[in-house]
Structures are given as C-alpha cells and as structure tokens.
C-alpha cells in the first residue's frame, strides 16, 4: 500500500532552488518600494540624552526617519509568548521590548532609529549623519554574574536582574538524602556557551500597506507566518488580523531564530502606512549577529550520585540561564520546560531536582536554537555520566546500559513516567547504543587507542540522548505557561479533477515538507505524488498555522493533514457507495479507487471527486464539494532518542582537535523519507559539533560582541567535518497516526556532548585528568588543559 512512504523520494521543491529561482524575502521587489536601515546602539548599556536627525533628514533620497519618540505610547513593544512565574508565585518579570528605544539602550544592536530612503545605500549614508548623545553605563553579560549583588541592572524594576526562578522534580531534601547515600558523586561546573544560529539567509522583512483595501502585507523570513501575524496584530500594533496578510516565502534556514516575532517586522509594517510606500529591511550579517536571537548560554553546576554498582541514585542541577536584555518569544520556556523536564534522560534516576534562575543581561536576546533546552539537558547529563565513568574507572557504554530504562512500546507497556513531569511515549534504548558500538568497532578502537604513540591522543565520546518534540499538547503547555496553543491545522482541497491541494500551517524552510507531506497524502489517497501540491507560508492561502519548530511538522502538522485526508476519504466513500449502489461499509479503498468488497465493481477517486463538484447523481442530503480542514492537537510530546559516538584525535603540540569519525544511531519513530531524515540528522550534527569545537560568542567587559562576524565567529566548514556514519532503529510513536516522532533537532541535541566527551577521554587516556575544557574546545583551551 505504500508506494511513497519509506522511500527516498527526490525533493519536489529542489528544482526552483537549483536553478536560482527560489524566492526569498530579499528577492521580492514591490513597486515604489523604499528601503530601511536601522541605526543601532553601539553600546551595551547607555542612556540617550538626545538624538538629532535633522541633517540626515535633509539628505536627498531620504523618505523619513523615525525614533522611539515617534512610536505611539500604545505600542509597547514585541511580546513574550511564555510565562514562567517565580517559585514563590510572583509573576515573571517582563519588561517591554520596544520597537525603537526611547531612553535607554540595553544591548549592542538595540534599535534606535529607522531611516527610510529610496535605496538602502542612501538609508545607510543618512544614518551616519544622525547625531546621538549617549551616557554610557557599566554592563553585565554573564547570566550568573548578573544575579550577584552590585551587578549593573538591565531594567531598573527587575531586582538582581532576575526574570524568574524555577524548580522541578523531587524535593531537594529527598535528592540530597539520596546523594548522601551514594558510593560515588560526580560533580561538574560548566558553561553551555552562547551560540549564534546563523541561518545563511539574513533576516528580511517587507511591509506594504494597500490603501485601496485598507490591508497590510508583511513578507518576512519566518518559520511561522500565522504566529507572527497573531503576535504583531494582537499584541504589538493593534491591527485586526483579517486586515493583515503575512507571507513567509522561501526562507533560507531558521534553526529557531526565525520563529520569533522581531521588532523590524512590526516597524516596516507600521511605517509602510505612514510613508505610503512598501518598505524593505534586510539585515547585514553583522546586524544578524547582534539581533537574531541567540541560543544556549547556561551556567550550570550539577551533581550525580551513583551506588557501588554504578546505578544512578540522584541528580541535582543548578542553572543560570541568560535571557539577554529582553524576553524573546519563547525564551522563558527554553531553560525550564524544554530543559528541566529532560533531565531524566534515558536513565532510571530515582531522584532528580533542577533549579533554574533566569537573568537579564546587557546582551542580545536568547531563545530557542535547534534543540532549545534539550541540547542543554543532554549536555548536562551526558557530560556528567561520561565523567563519572572516567572517575569510577568504568566503561562509559556499560555504565549507560546499566542505567537505561527498560523497553516500553506505549501500547502494551505504559509510557515511562519521569521524575520531571513527563511521560515518555515509547522507547527501546539499548539497541541504539549497541548498534553504535558495533558501527564504531568499539573493542578494536580501545586497542588502537591504547597503542597510540605518535604525538596524537585518541579519544572516544558517547552521548545517549532523549528529546521531547512534536510540540505540543495545548492544554499541557498552557498549564506550563504557554500563551498559545501548539496544535496544527491542515486543509485538503480535492479539485474536481481529483488533483489535491494541501494547505498546511507547517512552514518549510529546508525540511522538505513539499515532498514528505506529498508522500503521505499520495499514499493515503492512493494517487500519484505529482497530483498533490503542498501549499504553505501565506496567511491568505492557509487558514491557520502554528509553524515549524520543535521537530513538530510531521508529528503535528502531518497528523492534521492525515485527519483531513481521512475526512476526504470518508466522504468519498459515501459518494462512491451511492455511485456503486452499495453501502459505504461494503467498500474497500485501495490504489485510488473504491471497490465493492468481493466484486469487481469499482469507482475511481477522480470520478468521485468530479461527482462531488457535479452532484447530479448524488447522495441525498450530502453537501457538494470535497474540502476539509482539520486541527490536530497532540495528546503527548514525542520522544526520539539515539546514541552518538565521536572519535577525536588531539595534536599534543598544538591542542588542535580533529574529529575523525562521527557515528549517529537515531530513533525518530517511523520514517517517511529516509533521505530527508538523514539530511536533517547530518545538519544537526554539524551544528552540534560546531558548538563543541568551533562556535561561541565572546563579549568584552563593556558588552561588545567581539566576534560578531564570520571573520571572528567560527562556523563549521566542509573541511572541519568528516562524512557522517548514520543509522537508525524504529520505535513508532504510539499516539499519532503516522507513528512519527520528529528528526529536525536530534542531530544537534546528541552530538555536542559526544564530541566533548571524546576530547576529555583522549585527555584522560593521555594522562591529563581534567574534568572540563570549556566549549568551544579551541586548540588553545585543549593545549592549556595539557600544561
């Protein structure tokens, strides 16, 4: 029955991209379009005494210049979409994030003025004539330092710069008691450093107000056009939603950074009406470094206790999480419900407590970046368990196998209830690790490692992870502070000729939805894939959508499509039964036709769809047409898992780390398109490896980002990486119709600690018993660890 599902169907969207016909926001030109340049604060923390735009305004070709004073008081700024209250019940501190600063700048890159001109060059030229007088203040950039007494305050009304504090799991006393009983306790203090998502397409937005229809259009590089419309209309500009169309055209990568509603989107929309022209803004890369929401930035202290057999008895974690200067859309959820809840990992740890303090700093906002909280949780667990193995002189693979949760399929056996508020859907953890050990040739490697004697140190590192994706059951996340539902919608329109248009709220920006979703629809309907078209990214064409993030598109968006397809087939069966003069219960549907069971009487899908639109001979009381919308709200998260293994070689003289091999065995549930899933894993691996070895922001004391360009911030290149060795096991998700779990983030979640553990292993085996080398593990840091 599956002609397409499970096959590596070549991507239907590729043709436009390989011929240069992709249409990204910056490729769009509108008639009479003006261009905006946003003048940004060069200081991390300063008070604006005065702004003089008169000389700039006089420049030929300048249309208008606006500052914070020109934004109506009623427009407070862009909102946060998730509320996490203090432990004591106090409401989360949520200072406004203004579209343009009025008085005080709070990070380098804070928007101060928008210059609108006939060309981007003129806008940039004019911006240099704006005269601003600043009083510069001290800044704080580290999330832990920000909470200490005497730290400069980011917002005067937020004491200790603390946005909220939060705790989850067993009571601390219980965890302490269990820890006290441990035969061995491994303790680790580390930073999960701040990284920059760096989608290669810089963010771009075009606002256009159409006077004839009193309607706005916003083209924007977004992962979720409807969510952007909802946030901008209802919470920022106060424009009715039906008067706004948001289009996310082709988008050049997101990785989380294009989920959020950004100030520039609201600025170009708002001012397009005032200046009476469409306005385009496109970020320069250096601007992207300063303003695209960053990821990670945790400072953590964790302890894990083991009994004499190596069974984990307790885990206690304290984390400071950097929010940046303002709360981005999902920022509070990342270190809490996407991080603390994952600290069970794959292990039977009976007592777990996680305590998080979120702080404001004079830095750009931090929010979800590929994995969002789950990489931080995985890093914490997997670093500490590998280190424990070294300290206890146990094999790190055996230590994990000893602690794994027993298999459960979520059908015959109940889902596993964790100490940190989740119930895993289905899992079978030993096979992924065993397969990875087989692929790596573990015993042979250990022999090679022991025999190594050429001035290089060899190391192997493991990471066995679980993540929660397919986000998310709306009622559950609502109870946890989400200010939105996290369902997805889909409309399936069967054309009279039997061709199918599918409108999905899941935006595709590299994930291959136009292919994967078409595979699902074509197989379920028994029609050719060429007869299916997937439409996304335009709020005027797609009724609603929550967008693409959290590896949710297939598990949630795909399930919504399946629901609509099933409604089509149900109605089709009624029409077919009428045409065949049979009961719908006596019909079978296969290969695009309904057949009366036990006979050769049949009617094809195309004849049924035509009848639905030309209903001359038609069931009484049945509506014409074949067009169904569905909303799918999942009943649980999905829980992909996997085992990653890295092999590294350290040059003892320079400290340079070479990643020699990377093995990933992932279980993402059922797989619709193996080629695309492998591609998602590869990309995630590169980002996770990038964090381990290459990437990380560097701020100076004054709050300047000193590596805010590709000349200074090290992006992984082709020659930094090996070819990856990937495989998978399949443990279907028991609670969605496709049995899929999600594959977008797995690579990024599992890989970082595997690489770091491999370096630590190499150092220990080489006689350098260090607990930690901070990420990114640059040659100097590794070399220093050996001195």
């Amino acid at each position: 029955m599956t002609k397409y599902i499970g096959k590596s169907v070549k991507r239907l969207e590729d043709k436009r991209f390989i011929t240069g016909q992709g249409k990204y926001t910056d490729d769009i030109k509108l008639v009479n379009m003006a261009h905006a340049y946003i003048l940004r604060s060069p200081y991390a923390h300063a008070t604006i005494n005065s702004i003089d735009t008169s000389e700039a305004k006089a420049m030929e070709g300048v249309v208008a210049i606006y500052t914070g004073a020109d934004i109506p008081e009623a427009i407070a700024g862009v909102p946060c979409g998730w509320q996490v209250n203090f432990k004591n019940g106090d409401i989360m501190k949520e200072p406004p994030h203004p579209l343009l600063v009025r008085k005080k700048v709070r990070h380098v890159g804070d928007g101060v003025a928008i210059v609108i001109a006939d060309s981007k060059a003129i806008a940039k030229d004019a911006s240099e004539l704006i005269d601003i007088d600043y009083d510069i203040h001290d800044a704080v950039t580290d999330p832990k330092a920000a909470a200490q007494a005497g730290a400069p305050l980011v917002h005067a009304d937020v004491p200790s710069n603390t946005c909220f504090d939060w705790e989850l799991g067993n009571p601390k006393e219980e965890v302490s008691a269990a820890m006290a009983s441990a035969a061995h306790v491994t303790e680790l203090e580390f930073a999960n450093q701040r990284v920059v998502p760096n989608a290669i397409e810089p963010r771009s937005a075009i606002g256009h107000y159409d006077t004839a229809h009193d309607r706005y259009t916003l083209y924007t590089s977004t992962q979720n056009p409807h969510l952007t419309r909802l946030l901008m209309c209802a919470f920022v500009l106060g424009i009715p939603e039906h008067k706004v169309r948001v289009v996310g055209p082709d988008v050049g990568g997101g990785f989380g950074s294009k989920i959020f509603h950004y100030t520039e989107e609201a600025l170009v929309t708002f001012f397009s009406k005032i200046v009476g022209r469409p306005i385009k803004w496109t970020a320069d890369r250096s601007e992207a470094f300063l303003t695209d929401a960053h990821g990670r930035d945790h400072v953590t202290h964790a302890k894990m206790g083991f009994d004499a057999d190596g069974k984990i008895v307790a885990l206690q974690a304290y984390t400071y999480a950097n929010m940046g200067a303002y709360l981005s859309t999902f920022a509070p959820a990342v270190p809490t419900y996407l991080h603390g809840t994952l600290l069970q990992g794959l292990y039977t740890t009976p007592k777990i407590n996680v305590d998080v303090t979120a702080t404001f700093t004079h830095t750009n906002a931090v929010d979800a970046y590929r994995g969002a909280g789950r990489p931080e949780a995985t890093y914490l667990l997997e670093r500490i368990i590998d280190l424990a193995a070294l300290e206890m002189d146990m094999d790190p693979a055996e230590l994990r196998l000893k602690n794994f949760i027993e298999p459960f399929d979520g059908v015959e056996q109940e889902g596993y209830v964790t100490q940190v508020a989740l119930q895993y859907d289905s899992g079978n953890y030993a096979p992924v690790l065993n397969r990875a050990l087989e692929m790596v040739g573990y015993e042979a490697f250990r022999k090679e490692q022991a025999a190594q004697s050429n001035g290089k140190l060899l190391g192997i590192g493991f990471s066995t992870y679980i993540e929660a994706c397919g986000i998310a059951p709306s009622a559950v996340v609502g109870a946890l502070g989400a200010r939105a539902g996290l369902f997805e919608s889909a409309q399936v329109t069967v054309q009279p000729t039997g061709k199918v248009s599918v409108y999905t709220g899941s935006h595709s920006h590299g994930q291959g939805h136009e292919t994967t979703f078409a595979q699902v629809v074509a197989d379920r309907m028994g029609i050719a894939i060429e007869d299916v078209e997937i439409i996304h990214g335009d709020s005027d064409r797609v009724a609603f959508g929550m967008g693409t993030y959290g590896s949710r598109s297939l598990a949630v968006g795909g399930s919504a499509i399946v629901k609509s397809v099933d409604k089509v087939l149900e109605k089709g069966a009624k029409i077919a039964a009428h045409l065949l003069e049979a009961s719908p219960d006596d019909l079978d549907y296969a290969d695009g036709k309904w057949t009366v069971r036990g006979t050769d009487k049949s009617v094809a899908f195309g004849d049924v769809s035509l009848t639905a639109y030309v209903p001359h001979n038609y069931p009484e009381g049945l509506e014409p047409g074949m067009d169904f919308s569905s909303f799918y709200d999942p009943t649980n998260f999905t829980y992909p898992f996997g085992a990653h293994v890295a092999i590294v070689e350290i040059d003892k003289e320079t400290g340079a780390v070479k990643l020699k091999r990377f093995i990933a065995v992932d279980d993402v549930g059922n797989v619709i398109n193996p080629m695309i899933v492998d591609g998602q894993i590869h990309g995630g691996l590169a980002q996770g490896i990038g964090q381990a070895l290459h990437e990380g922001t560097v701020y100076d004391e004054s709050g300047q980002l000193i590596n805010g360009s590709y000349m200074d911030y090290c992006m992984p290149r082709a020659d930094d990486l090996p070819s990856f060795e990937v495989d998978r096991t399949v443990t279907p998700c028991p609670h969605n119709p496709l049995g899929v779990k999600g594959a977008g983030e797995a690579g990024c979640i599992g890989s970082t600690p595997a690489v770091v553990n491999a370096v630590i292993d190499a150092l220990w085996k080489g006689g350098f018993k260090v607990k930690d080398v901070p990420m990114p593990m640059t040659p100097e840091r590794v070399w220093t660890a050996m001195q």
Partner: protein
Amino acid sequence: MANNISITVNGKTHTGEVEARTLLVDYLREHLSLTGTHIGCDTSSCGACTVHVDGKAVKSCTMLAVQADGCEVTTVEGLSTNGSLHPIQEGFREEHGLQCGFCTPGMMMTATDLLKRNPNPTEHEIREALEGNFCRCTGYHNIVKSIQHAANKMNEATA
C-alpha cells in the same frame, strides 16, 4: 559618480550606468533581477554570492560592478542550457545536496569551478575546495556526495 559598463551575463550583454560603489552582487540582483545569487555575509566569507567571472569562481560581493566591465559573468541562472540541468544541478537534486537552498547557487558555482580544474576530486579535495562556502543545513555531507555525483556524470559524458 555614474559609470558606464557593459557586462555579459549568462551570454547576454547588458549595458548601463552604475554607481562606482555598486557591488557586482547588487548589480546582478538589483539591476538585472538575477536574484539567484545571494548575499549571506558582509566579510567575503560565506560564498553565497559566488559567480564565475571570465570562467573563474569569485565572490561577487567582493568585486565592484565597474570592475566586471567587459567581463563574461555566469550566475546560477546560466548553469542549465536549453532547459536541461547541468550535471552539478542534477547532483544536488539526486544526492539531497540542498535543504533551504540559500547557499546552493554559490555552492554549485564553486563546485563547477573545482570540477573544471580537477575532474576527479577526492572527498578531501572537495571539502577543501568548499572552504569558502558555508552551509548551515546539510552538514556538507550530501553536498560532497552531490559533487561526486556530478563528477561521475561529467566524466561519463566525456568518456
């Protein structure tokens, strides 16, 4: 100050005035509406803007349009001929060498330059040749395979 230039792009000669400060990439995108060539950075690092000038891969963000006066420029839009895809385009599709597609034109232009100089590159040589092109989606794994695919196809064709 305006400057008169004449540039042949994908076989078609364009004559007109540009500001001296106009970068070649902006000329292609804004003046000629050839938006397949992308801008991904401002430090000549990412390679998304790679085109061929007189047959050689260059970063069109690091060349003035006036410097391309009298030159032959090939962009991604000029890769396929008579409606049939170039082997490098086929390779990227067959081996899933692209996801979001933004770096893809630059990748393909660099790859074709490589294959011209070295028709049988090793994996190591391919990875080294891509050091001026960033991809954030694929981890480069399938880009390498795409280029190998194209090399095989081109070698079969000339065998």
